């Protein structure tokens, strides 16, 4: 996909808006997604993305970009190209089919008599 401009708006990129950067193209640093954990016990939350030449530098850039205001105690960086994402166009099939299925929620069920501690 060397012909794809990674900076073009999504609707101008073929292949459903999936941006693939050419790994052989060293003129542009690859894209990384950054996850920051704000304190112990919480999970890492997506903070944003950045460009960096390799994992070690991505971690350092993440520290500079996303933890400047004392936001984090831990950082993960993941190559954006390694993330497989759900297709925004198949929202119906993916996410809407779970609507209305109240039996998948615990509140659907009535509490049985004689079963304590539920």
């Amino acid at each position, binding site marked *: 996909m060397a012909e794809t401009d990674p900076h073009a708006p999504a609707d101008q990129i073929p292949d459903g808006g999936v941006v693939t950067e050419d790994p052989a193209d060293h003129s542009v640093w690859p894209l990384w997604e950054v996850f920051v954990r704000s304190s112990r016990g919480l999970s890492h939350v997506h903070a944003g993305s950045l460009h*960096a*030449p390799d994992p070690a530098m991505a971690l350092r*850039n993440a520290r500079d970009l996303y933890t400047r*205001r004392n936001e984090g105690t831990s950082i993960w960086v993941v190559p954006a190209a390694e993330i497989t994402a759900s297709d925004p166009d198949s929202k119906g099939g993916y996410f809407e089919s779970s609507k209305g299925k109240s039996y998948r929620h615990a509140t659907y069920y009535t509490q049985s008599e004689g079963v304590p501690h539920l």
Partner: protein
Amino acid sequence: MSHSGGFTSQDSATKISVGDAITPEDVSASSAVASDETARYALLLGDDCLILAQRLGHWISRAPELEEDIALGNIALDLLGHARFFLTYAGSAWGKTEDDLAYFRSEEEFRSCRLVEQENGDFGRTIARQLLFSFYTHELYQRLVRSADTTLAAIADKALKEVDYHQDHAAQWLLRLGGGTDESKRRMQEGLESVWPYLEELFADVEPTPTLAEQEVAVLPSSLRDAVLTRLSSIIEESGLEVPASKGAFGADRSGRFSENRGFILAEMQVLARQHPGATW
């Protein structure tokens, strides 16, 4: 001296706190007053940080990548913070503020070393300057945390955590540029060669460091030399580049007499404060 800061209970709307750390305002509000000699030492340390912060700030919007703009900008602001601490403390001896000392001293009154006054050059040269200065300050602050002067020790303790990262940033880039393309190797080597003559001045036992070192207030600059050189040589060799063989440049006394750059830096840094004395924003 007060280390309370008073920030811990003031969480922002995003529930991220500023975090508790010593600030220049704490130094200013404390009853600590530096002696004349200690103040002259603090000024020497602070001037290095102030000039380098001014130099690095020039990279913002000019670095190879946006991410690097921010990295160098962060480092510049850290250094400006260190300068504020040292200048605030120095000013306590003479009834002056950090601004009086930063903006209303003339060229020959500054004590900065020539290394930090060197022009940015290309990215390789800036990284070379960062490497030398951060390795030097890391060794310095590691020892200054044990200073008999508790204010200097507290400032060194705060600065050390930040310099730890400056050192890592410079070393990571040295390794990548040294192990990169022919052009990156050439430029990084040229960068090292261009700043190396100014390394020796950092280890000169200029006044008032020998007296204060005897009182265990200051770190004797010459005592840092071996440790800094060993660590620099080791990382440069690891990067595949060569440790420059050049001797120290003439006039290593921090007097500014042999620096062509200092006047230009100060002109740019001081012009606004001097044209509009007392201006606030």
